[in-house]
């Protein structure tokens, strides 16, 4: 674990640095994929960048709105670089909405755009697993196995490594699949299969984690959400493979 990277007087959070690198590599791959799919690749980069910036600003503003009476007395604190003061779920929702708005405004073809973003999604997952390994987050359940990781006072499942291996597998599968000349999937299918694969991996691997958010009668929230995503992606892939829209082809 290397949660902090010291550069002279500065202490940089390694996890944040890895995530930034992951997003950068992901966007680079998305641009290349957009070029391969023969549509304006700069729009894909701008769409993802718009979503990221809007998500970050939205997460902070939402948090500020939740604690308005405190920030009114100290408005400059809005710019405090503390990840603890981000409303994360709302930030993700705002980022997705901003990206969708950008796409609609520039009339980007939905399915091709999603296909171009598929590798960025996988690379971000790999970076996220690496970041969690560096920070010790997303830790596994206690387990005495030859490959267990000693973390937070106990031997545990190396859940971060599991997630990285799964995401690397999905990336490998995506890279192999897009090289196949014989079988060209309809637009959007590539994205849906990547999303379904990542969701299936999360459903399986979440069981080995020890920090799951629990809802209802012991259900792991990430598993339930991923199950929904898996079902939706697979069902949608059946419909989209039958009915490609003319604007997307």
């Amino acid at each position, binding site marked *: 674990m290397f*949660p*902090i990277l*010291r550069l002279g007087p500065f*202490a940089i*959070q390694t996890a944040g640095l890895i995530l930034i690198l992951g997003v950068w590599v992901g966007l680079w791959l998305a641009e290349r994929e957009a070029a391969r799919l023969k549509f304006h690749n700069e729009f894909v980069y701008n769409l993802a960048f718009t979503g990221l910036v809007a998500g970050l600003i939205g997460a902070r503003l939402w*948090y500020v709105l*939740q*604690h308005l009476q*405190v*920030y009114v*007395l*100290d408005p*400059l*604190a809005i710019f*405090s670089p*503390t990840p*603890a*003061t981000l409303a994360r779920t709302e930030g993700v929702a705002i980022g997705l909405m901003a990206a969708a708005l950008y796409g609609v405004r520039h009339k980007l073809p939905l399915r091709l755009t999603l296909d171009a973003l598929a590798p960025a999604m996988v690379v971000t997952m790999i970076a996220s697993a690496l970041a969690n390994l560096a920070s*010790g987050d997303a830790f596994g359940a206690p387990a005495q196995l030859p490959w267990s990781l000693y973390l*937070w*006072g*106990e031997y545990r499942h190396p859940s971060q490594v599991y997630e990285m291996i799964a995401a690397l597998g999905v990336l490998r599968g995506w890279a192999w699949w897009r090289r196949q000349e014989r079988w060209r999937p309809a637009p959007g299918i590539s994205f849906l299969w990547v999303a379904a694969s990542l969701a*299936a991996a999360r*459903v*399986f691997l*979440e*069981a080995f984690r*020890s*920090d*799951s958010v*629990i809802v209802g*009668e*012991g*259900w*792991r929230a990430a*598993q*339930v959400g*991923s*199950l929904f995503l*898996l*079902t939706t992606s*697979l*069902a949608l892939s*059946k419909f989209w493979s*039958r009915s490609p829209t003319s604007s997307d082809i």
Partner: protein
Amino acid sequence: MNDSQRGWFFIIVIVLAAAFWTWLSRVPDSTLSGSRLANPREDFPAPDFTLDHLDGGSTQLSDLRGNVVIVNLWASWCAPCRAEMPAFQKLYNANRERGLEVLAVNSTFQDSETDARNFAGQLGLTYPILLDREGVVSRQYRLQALPSTFIIDRSGIIRTVIIGGPASEATLQTQIEALLNESP
């Protein structure tokens, strides 16, 4: 069975298998968090310690159970530590009666008691200044950077970790507000 039917069959099998695994993996929340060992990270019990005060006496962290406790690791030569100390003082003054305790743990093993005393005097700090002479608490809390701040709830669980600083009063107030409203 044609291609389309085979596709739907494949989807249904995968979704059912995933749903079964999700059902099989259910676990009571208390099983996940109830047996955790003390560690300096969010959602874990805070490592306990006993340290001497700058002005005599000592404090054991676990004796403060029932209060919201801010443990701030600092040193007199650390500029961000100096910048955020007034915020802790204001927070302490405003919320002490609601059950807030602030423990400023001086990294004395890499500082000096004289400098710590001058520092506290200059800033007029009234909350307890504790002396980590041997670096025990710094090791327990895996100190990586100064300042480091740990916000602990009334049941002794770390709820927020802020590495680096200076943390603003508003940031700290928003982090402790919900914890102060929880029942002891």
